[in-house]
């Protein structure tokens, strides 16, 4: 009898609690946006941290203007510590438990590729504000509705810019590729080979190294022997720093171009401020790019004095702005309707640029090679590169 009673009591309790969860009065007035990105673990964690600052700033700005559909935006933040299982878990939690309307993230392409199927099946729009792998937005391109969008650099596009620069800068037409053996490095190598082939150029050396290697002198010795005067590094910031350190050891300084991983402080911490200035890398924006960027940078630095990479803060900010505009246009938080609204957006003012029809059925990249520029470290800050070679680049050079 006592058992029966307690079972009844328990089930009564369960019913009331589940009811309590089902109709939280507050949630009616809120729209939740998830944020799932590495903010602590890998070499690109700084992009996740700065991205979060931008994400929060955009939510503040929208709420200051009365929110969306008369409801407040609320950010639900998760750190995936760069681990795919954790990232998948976060994604399920955000969608199933937190009932977010959309997700911004992640930082690591590998994590995105691990969970893309979840938002796609559950019809929750995702804007990747950092991860750059070409395949992220392309995987579900053929589906009736593709829920994955991006406001970030795309590997293929940034490599196209690097290749175009390398070809203008080389005097000997001897270009080499160095890349780590991770999926990222190998995909970059493949993209680079294809892009260089469009220019009719075959790299004189293609060298690999392990992601944890600290001495690349033997690989660089072969690059040097092949006579390369421009080297493109398809690796994350830490590895590019080790490439620079090995170049210093050999006193061999060809032009070194790298992907936007170099925008993170591990490059400058590991290679040192002087050596870090020797690589030129691709970036979508810099803190001095336009008035809106200057204003946002000032505001974020006041709040977070140690804010690293501004670039992902701008991308995180713009991602939220686009989601908010889509929810307003759809007049709903229903994933299917928001996805359609994203593909039919009108003008939205962002930090990086004023977006005008940023997405369509076939185009899920808000930014393209025309929006990117080249940057480098100078006295501990990231600045735009504006030399003769950059000025001579034309649209026709950006083959991809």
């Amino acid at each position, binding site marked *: 009898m006592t058992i029966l009673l307690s079972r009844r009591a328990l089930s009564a309790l369960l019913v009331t609690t589940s009811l309590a969860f089902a109709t939280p009065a507050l949630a009616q007035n809120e729209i939740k946006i998830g944020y799932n990105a590495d903010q602590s673990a890998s070499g690109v964690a700084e992009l996740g941290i700065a991205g979060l600052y931008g994400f929060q700033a955009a939510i503040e700005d929208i709420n200051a203007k009365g929110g969306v559909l008369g409801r407040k935006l609320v950010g639900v933040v998760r750190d995936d510590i760069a681990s795919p299982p954790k990232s998948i878990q976060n994604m399920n939690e955000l969608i199933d438990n937190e009932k977010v309307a959309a997700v911004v993230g992640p930082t690591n392409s590998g994590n995105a590729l691990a969970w893309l199927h979840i938002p796609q099946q559950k019809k929750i729009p995702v804007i990747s504000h950092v991860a750059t792998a070409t395949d992220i937005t392309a995987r579900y391109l053929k589906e009736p509705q593709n829920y994955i969008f991006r406001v970030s650099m795309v590997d293929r596009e940034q490599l196209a810019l690097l290749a175009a620069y390398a070809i203008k800068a080389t005097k000997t037409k001897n270009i080499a590729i160095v890349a780590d053996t991770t999926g990222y490095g190998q995909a970059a190598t493949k993209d680079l080979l294809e892009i260089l082939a469009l220019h009719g150029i075959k790299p004189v050396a293609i060298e690999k190294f392990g992601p944890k290697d600290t*001495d690349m*002198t033997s690989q660089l010795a072969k690059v040097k022997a092949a006579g390369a005067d421009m080297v493109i590094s398809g690796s994350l910031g830490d590895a590019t720093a080790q490439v620079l350190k090995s170049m*210093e*050891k050999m006193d061999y300084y060809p032009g070194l171009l790298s992907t936007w991983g170099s925008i993170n402080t*591990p490059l400058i911490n590991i290679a*040192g401020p002087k050596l870090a200035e020797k690589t030129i890398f691709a970036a979508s924006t810099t803190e001095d790019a336009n008035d809106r960027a200057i204003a946002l940078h000032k505001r974020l630095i006041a709040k977070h004095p140690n804010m690293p990479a501004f670039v992902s803060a701008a991308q995180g900010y713009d991602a939220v702005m686009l989601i908010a505009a889509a929810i307003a246009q759809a007049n709903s938080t229903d994933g299917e309707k928001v996805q359609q609204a994203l593909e039919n957006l009108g003008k939205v003012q962002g930090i990086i640029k004023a977006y005008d029809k940023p997405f369509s059925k076939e185009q899920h990249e808000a930014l393209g090679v025309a929006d990117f520029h080249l940057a480098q470290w100078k006295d501990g800050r990231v600045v735009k590169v504006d030399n003769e070679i950059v000025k001579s680049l034309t649209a026709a050079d950006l083959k991809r």
Partner: protein
Amino acid sequence: MTAILQALASGLALGAIYGLIALGFNITYATTKTFNFGQGAFLVPGSLVGVSLLLLAAGKPHWGNLAPSEMTLLSYGLATLASVAIVGAIGIVLYYCAIKPFVGAGGLNWVLSTIGFGIILQNAALAVWGPASIAVPSPLGNEVWRIAGAGIRPQEVLIAAVAISVMVGLDIVIRKTRFGKALRAVAFNPQAAAIVGINVEKIVIIAFVISSSLAGLAGMLIAPITTASVFIGLGVALKAFSAAIVGGLTNPRGCMLGGFLLGLIEALVGLWRAEMREITIFLLIIIVLVLRPGGLLGARSVEKI
């Protein structure tokens, strides 16, 4: 030619680290016929404790990046001594938790218990320091010394110098001192050693302390080259273990030789094809094990069945 010289310089520094850790495997294997399979995890507190001490001394939180100005040879030396002492103390805990319950009992329980202890240690470090890597400046500065065109960093010279002195020092201790005699006696026959009045357990504990300290020292030495992080240990320890097997687990000089051999092979094969390094090393290990099961300098093992 410069490229080969460059590879030799890089290989020697790397080899010295392998040799140092391999020596740690030797010293406990000799005394207990067990060793710490989780040795790689001991590099982690070795480097992180030292770096945190330096950060705290500079008035910063325990986690962050060190500025080159906050690193002097003296402060680096003191931090290294402190972290060697702390990791040595962890060695005592290791002995009581993961070795003593299983030693002499036969079976492979100690293999799993030491691996488990290492995983516990690594995850504890993950909880304290987080997963990101910390850039550590070298106490000798970051410029490059040039020898006949090949560049070598002062830290690499420091690694080789410290590692070789520690190896030579330990070699002398083992061969010349009363403690060394006791150690060898325990290694040869623990029962007989106990009968002649040697405190076997004390010797064994000291062996584990030395072994762990060596890993701690290695962690602190390589931090300026690899950065300090929770994930530095595993790859290095696996190579060190291979070095011990190739050189001879029972012979301390063999372990050092194995370390240098592996470091040099790794660097020189890298000159040819980077992705062939691991293949070459592990092929070599298999060949050595087939031809000389005890390793290059190891005693010919006669297993009684």
